[in-house]
C-alpha cells in the first residue's frame, strides 16, 4: 500500500524534520504523530497484548492471577500475555559514502538516522530492546539491544555522532553481525544497497538462518530516482572516487532502466528468502516507513 494514498496519515516531511536537531525529539514527534494519525491511544498499544486465560497451576506467578475474575467466579485463572519483551530490534544503518548523497536538504544518511531514531523510539515505547549497528565495509559501531530506560538515548547519541565511513561492502559486516546476534529478533537494515546484490542476499540469508525477521529499507535520493540532470556532467562516484563524463539526458533512460532492474532484482531475491523489502525515496514522509514497519510486525504475529 502506498503511503501517499492513506488520507488518515499526517505526513511530516523530511525537510521539516531536518530542522529538529534533537534526534529524540524528532523521533518522538514522528512516532506520536504517526500513532495519533492511526486514531489509537498510544497507551493501548500492542506491547502488552492480552492473549487468553488458563487455569492456575502450581508454580504460576500469583501476580498473574486475575483476582477480579476470581471474585466473580471463585476460580483461579491466570492471564496469559504475548512475550513482547523477548523481541529485540537491531537497527543496521549503512554509513558508506554513498549514503551522504543528497540533492536537497536531507541526505540519505540523515534520513536513515531519522528513520532509525523513529523506529527505535517506537520500539522503546513498546518496552522492547533496541540496538544499533553502524557499518560500511565493517562494523563501525555496535550498540547491543537493551531495554534499559536510558538506552534509547545512548542509541540516539551514537547516531548523532556518526560520520560517513568507507565504501560499503555489506557481505562481511552482515555476516559478522549475524554471528553476534544469535538471539532471534528483528533486523532492520537501512541502506541504499548500492553494493553487490549477491553479497547482500548472502548476509540477509545468514540472519534469516539465525531466525531473525529482516526488514530492509532501501533509501534513494529523489535525484537518484528521477535523474533530472542535463548537460554534460562529470559524475564522481562517492564510493570509489571514479569519474565519468556523461551527457546526462542521454544517459537518463539507461540509468533509470538499470535502477529499476536492480530494485526488482533485490526485491525478488529478498522475497525469495523471506525478507521484507521496502524502497523509500528520501522526500517521502517517515510515516510511510513506520507504517511499513508496523505492517511487517503485524504480519509476523499473524
Amino acid at each position, binding site marked *: 500500500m502506498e503511503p501517499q494514498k492513506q488520507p488518515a496519515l499526517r505526513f511530516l516531511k523530511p525537510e521539516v524534520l531536518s530542522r529538529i536537531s534533537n534526534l529524540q525529539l524528532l523521533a518522538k514527534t514522528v512516532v506520536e504523530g504517526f500513532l495519533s494519525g492511526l486514531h489509537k491511544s498510544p497507551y493501548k498499544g500492542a506491547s502488552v497484548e492480552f492473549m487468553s486465560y488458563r487455569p492456575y497451576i502450581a508454580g504460576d506467578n500469583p501476580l498473574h492471577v486475575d483476582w477480579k475474575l476470581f471474585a466473580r467466579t471463585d476460580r483461579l485463572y491466570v492471564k496469559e500475555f504475548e512475550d513482547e519483551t523477548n523481541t529485540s530490534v537491531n537497527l543496521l544503518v549503512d554509513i558508506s559514502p554513498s549514503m551522504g548523497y543528497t540533492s536537497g536538504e536531507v541526505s*540519505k544518511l540523515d534520513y536513515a538516522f531519522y528513520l532509525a531514531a523513529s523506529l527505535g523510539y517506537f520500539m522503546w515505547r513498546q518496552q522492547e530492546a533496541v540496538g544499533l549497528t553502524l557499518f560500511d565495509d565493517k562494523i563501525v559501531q555496535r550498540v547491543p539491544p537493551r531495554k534499559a530506560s536510558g538506552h534509547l538515548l545512548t542509541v540516539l547519541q551514537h547516531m548523532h555522532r556518526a560520520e560517513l565511513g568507507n565504501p560499503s561492502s555489506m557481505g562481511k559486516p552482515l555476516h559478522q553481525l549475524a554471528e553476534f546476534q544469535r538471539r532471534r529478533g528483528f533486523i532492520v537494515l537501512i541502506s541504499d544497497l548500492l553494493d553487490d546484490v549477491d553479497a547482500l542476499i548472502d548476509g540477509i540469508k545468514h540472519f534469516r538462518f539465525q531466525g531473525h525477521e529482516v526488514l530492509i529499507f532501501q533509501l534513494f535520493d529523489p535525484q537518484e530516482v528521477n535523474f533530472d540532470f542535463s548537460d554534460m*556532467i562529470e*559524475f*564522481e562516484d*562517492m*564510493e570509489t572516487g571514479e569519474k565519468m563524463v556523461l*551527457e546526462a539526458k542521454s544517459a537518463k533512460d*539507461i540509468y533509470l532502466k*538499470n535502477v529499476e532492474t*536492480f530494485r526488482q532484482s533485490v526485491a525478488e531475491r529478498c522475497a525469495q528468502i523471506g525478507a521484507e523489502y521496502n524502497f523509500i525515496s528520501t522526500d517521502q514522509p517517515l510515516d510511510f516507513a513506520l507504517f511499513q514497519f508496523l505492517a511487517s510486525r503485524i504480519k509476523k504475529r499473524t
Partner: protein
Amino acid sequence: MSFINPLFLAALATAALPILYHLVRRIQAKQVQFSSLMFFKMTPKEVVRRRRIQHWLLMVMRCVLLGLLAFAFARPFIPKDQIPFVSQRENESVVLLVDNSYSMQFVTENGGTLLDEAKNAAEAKLGEAVGDDEYSVIAFSDKTIQLTPLDSDISIHNNAVQSLVEPSYRTTDFYSAIRLAEDVLGSASHEKKRIVLISDIQQTGWQGAFENWKLDADIDFEIVHLVNGDERENNFVDGFSLLERRVEGRVVHRFNARVSTSEEGEDLPINTVDLEIEGDKVNEQRVGGDELQRASFQYQASREGTFTGNVKLEDDRLAIDNVRYFSFSVENKPELLSVGGSIRDITRDTYYLDRAFNQGDQALYTLNIAGSGGITRSSLRNQRVVFVASQSPTSAEAGVLRRYIEEGGSVIISFDDQSEISAYNRLLGQLGLGQISDVVRARSEQGYDAIIGDVDLKHPVFSVFTESGSGAIFRPKFRQYARVQVDSSATVLGRFDSGDPFLIENELGQGRVLLYTSSLNPGWTDFTINEMFVPFLYQLVKYALSANEVKKEYLVGEGVRFEGNPGEEWDVRGPGNTLYKVAVDDSGQGFFNETDQPGHYFAAKQGGEQVVFAVNVNPQESFLASRNAEEAYGAVVPPPDEVPVTVEEARLIEIDDEERQQKFWRYVILLMVLLFATETFIANRIKK
C-alpha cells in the same frame, strides 16, 4: 567585393563560438558527486555518439548564422567598377590646379622640388581618367594660366604638365586660380565636376575673397596637399633699404638688409650675408642667433653712374628668396633754381632757400638764383626744381613753366607780400591748380593764427613731422595765407585748421607742381624759423624730384611704367639677356609687365639714358607655413549640412552611397532569418 566596415569581418571569428562553446563545455563539464556510477557502467556509448552528430548539424547552422551576422555588419558591396555588365562610373570634368608659386621650389628630402611632386600628383590624377572624362590643367601662382582646355585626350594634359608647368617666382593666389577653374568648368561636358588643387596650400595664399565667395555646390573640391614633413625652415631677405649721404663731397650709400626665418618664434640661424656690387663681392657680414637680424653695409662708389648689386644669404632649401637685388645711381648734385629775390634780402624767400640748401661740401643740392625775368627755357635747362617764390610770373613765363613741368621738371610755388594775385592766378590757372580767392589774415578772420590741421602724415612730404614727435606739426603758426579754390585736377596734400588748403599738388606730363599757400620767409608765418622747416623743404624737394624718376625696385609681376613721347619705344633687357620692347602710347606712357624673373633690368629709349631697376621676389611667399587642409577645404566649399570635411571623407560618403544602393546586408539578414527558423525547427525536433 568591398566592405564599408571591414573591421566587422574580424567578427567572423565569432562563427567559431559554438564550436568553442561546445569544446569548452565538454572540457569544463559540471562536476557532480553522485552516490554511485554502478548504473552507468552499462550505458552503451554509441547512443551518446549518435546524438552528438545531430548537434554538430545544429552547430554548423549556428556557426553560419554568426558568420552571416558579422558579414552583414561589415556592409558588403560591389564597387561599381567591379560590377560586370554595368557601365563604369559617371564621367566627370576635372580641372587640375597646379601650384607653381616659388615656394614650390622648396627642395624636398628626395632631392626634387615640391613642384616635381606636384607634377607627379597631377599625372597620377590624369591616370585616374576613365571613359570620356575630360581634364584641363591650370598652372597658378598669383598669375593663372590655363595650359590646356577641357579635353578628354589625356596625353595633351600629360604633355602640358611635363613641359608647360614651369617654376615661377610669383606668390600664391588661390582665389584667382579657383575662380578660373570654376569658370573653366562652366563649359564642362559632364554633369559631374571636380577641381583638384595640387599645392603646398601656404597660409599666405588664402588672402582672397573666400569669406564672400564659395565654390559652386555642384563642383567637388579635392586638395592634394604636398608637404615635406616638418622640415619647412627657410631663411630669406625680408626687407631692404638704401640710404644715400654726401660726406665731404663724396656720396656714401648705406644698405640695410633684414633677414628672417619662416619658423615662427625660432631664432634666425647663423648666416652670412654677402654684398655684391657690379658682380663683385665687396663685403660680408654674419647675422643670426639671438643677436643681429640686420646686415648693414656702407659703400662709397668710385665713379658716377648707375650701379647694380645684391645682398645674398647662404643657400638653403628655398634659395630664390635668399637674394635681394637693387640698383642705385651716383650722380652730380641736382640743381635747384630760385627765381627772384636775393640771398641777402631777409624778407624774401630766396634768402631762406639759400640758407637751407647751401650746406657746403655736405650739400645735397646746388641752389642757383635767377633774377627777375629769369624764367626762360634756357635758364630752366638742367634745373631739376624751380622755386617761384618772390616773382609774379608773366603769362609767357607761365607758359614756359608749364612746358618745363610737362617735360619732367618740377615747380614749387610759394607766396609773400609782393606776390601779385592776378599774376599768380594766371600761373595757377595754367598749371591746373586753382584760383586764389583772397589772402587770409587768420587772426582777423578767426581770432588766432592758423596752424597745419589736416595732413596725411604717411605722405613723404610730411614724414618729418612723424619722426620728430607728437605735436611738432601744430607748432608752426601762419598769420597769413592765400585761400585757393582748388581745381579738380589738383590734389590737396594738407590743410590748415581753418580747412583751407596748405599744400596742393598737380602732375602735368612728366613733371609735378606743388603750391605752398604761405610764404617761405617769416613775413606770413613763423614756420620759416621752426626746426621743422629745413627738413620739410628737403622732403618737398625730394618729392618734387621723384616726379620723373623711374622707380628702381619692383616685385616679380609688378608692372613698370615708362614715360616718353607717343610712338617712342623702350628697350628692356631682363635677366638672361632677354630683350623686350615697350611702346609709349598716346598718353605718353608705356607699361612693362614681363617682370617674371628676379634680377636686374636695363631699360633705355633710343638714344636716351639707360635706366636700371631691380625686380625681387615678394618675401610674403617665403613664409612657408601651410594651412590646415580641412580648413582650406572649408574656405572654398559651401557649408551645407553634409558637405564632407576632407577628401577622404568625401570618398567614404561616395562608397557609402554605393553600398546604400546595393543594400546587400538586407539579403544577408533575410538569409539569416531563414537559417535561424530552420535551426529552431531542427533543434525542436531533436529535443522532442
